[in-house]
């Protein structure tokens, strides 16, 4: 009797554990805080007292520096930002997440990259790679979420040619 109870409990625990592990949304990554602009967060400091206008439009009064260049034909601001609570982001199934878990939102469309990022092979690597001290960056630390395409940058100078004076005596 006791043995049966013990095995049932064991299987129950295993089931809980596996489902817990399988549930991707539950996965946690320690990331540095999101790179908000000065004074932007918390968004509710302005939006709590504002009416929600769900009409898709170009913003004229505020946030005019943001040029949406990210599947803008199919979406606009409130498809990602939660309409009711601007301090949160909105997943496809309606679930709300904090800004420091924004990778879940990006990962909904960019699944391949998200898979790579979780293992640590997408994006900039910093710090320690071993000993359980691996750190992650948020997507938004490198990509501007409103216009994610990386801008071309100025390269560092080329090496001196062998004939260059700076390479000779």
């Amino acid at each position, binding site marked *: 009797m006791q043995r049966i109870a013990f095995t049932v409990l064991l299987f129950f625990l295993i089931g809980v554990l596996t489902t817990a592990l399988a549930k991707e949304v539950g996965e946690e990554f320690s990331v540095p805080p999101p790179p908000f602009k000065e004074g932007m967060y918390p968004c509710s400091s302005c939006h709590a007292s504002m009416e929600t206008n769900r009409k898709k439009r170009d913003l004229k009064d505020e946030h005019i520096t943001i040029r949406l260049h990210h599947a803008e034909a199919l979406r606009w601001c409130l498809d990602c930002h939660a309409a009711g609570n601007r301090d949160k982001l909105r997943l496809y199934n309606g679930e709300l997440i904090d800004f420091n878990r924004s990778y879940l939102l990006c990962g909904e469309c960019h699944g*391949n990259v998200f898979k790579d990022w979780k*293992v*640590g*092979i*997408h*994006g*900039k*690597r*910093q*710090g*320690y*790679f*071993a*000993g359980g*001290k691996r750190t992650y960056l948020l997507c938004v630390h*490198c990509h501007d979420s409103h216009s994610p395409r*990386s801008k*071309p*940058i*100025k*390269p*560092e*100078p*080329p*090496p*001196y*040619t062998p004939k260059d004076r*700076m*390479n*000779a*005596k």
Partner: protein
Amino acid sequence: MPNRSYTRREFIRNLSLAALSGLSIPMLSSCTKEHAEDFLQKHFLEMTNDEKEALIARLEARYLKKYGKKFKVSAQEAIPNTLWGYGLDLSRCIGCRRCVYACVDENNSSRCKPQSQWIRVIRLKKGSLIDLENSEHYYNPETVPEKDYIYMPVQCQHCEKPPCVKVCPVHATWKEPDGLVVVDYNWCIGCRYCIAACPYRGRIFNWADPNVPPDKWNTSVHYLGNRPRMRNVVDKCTYCIQRVRMGRYPACVEACPTGSRKFGNLLDPQSEIRYVIENKRTFRLKEDLHTEPKFYYFFEA
């Protein structure tokens, strides 16, 4: 031919010529204790731990005197069960050369006269990717990446069968147990055979004493890695031996703004580099030379 006798004049002439030839020997110009210690230093792999400690103390004292900075020289050995591998995502490298200069800063390389850069980023034309002969090393556009080109950084590939180790006449370069190919700068005789033997331009020569701005010295150094070098010896990328044996990424990996560089332990199935090799399409340079490099280039998906 008549046999002239040995006159005093000839004796004096002989003696002065002999003295002159004796004085003209270029060696032993200043037989200081420092030179004597350097001259008699044993091969690093033959030293006992005590001897290594004495050597490190000597080097630290010397660097303090010469550069006015307190260097921390490590002789940390390889971590067991590690084999360091490197990954480079060619679909993401934009040729910005941040890695080159981060490496120079981290590894105390000479800035000019001569300029020592362990990493060389080359630009290749799309469509004929590994056409090294038509590569461009000195591209300098306004912005990168340029259309129609991809960029490929090359550095020491830390081969499993390194041709440089095979040809060194004095065993000054060898492969450590964790797979890093290192140089003992105090043992190298500067014959440059290894540079001739390297198929990847992984090794370069210190043609003169390195020129490092006094405020740019990185004082956390490893004996086999980024410690201040001297003229006329060979050096090369060491995968930042001073960092990776502490579990940190090499400087180039951290510097890359697009995250093209991956690093990890090939023997750890959970490592990033293993994931790359198992899931991405990787290749290595000059595979036909059978050097088995541990530097894997790959493309996204």
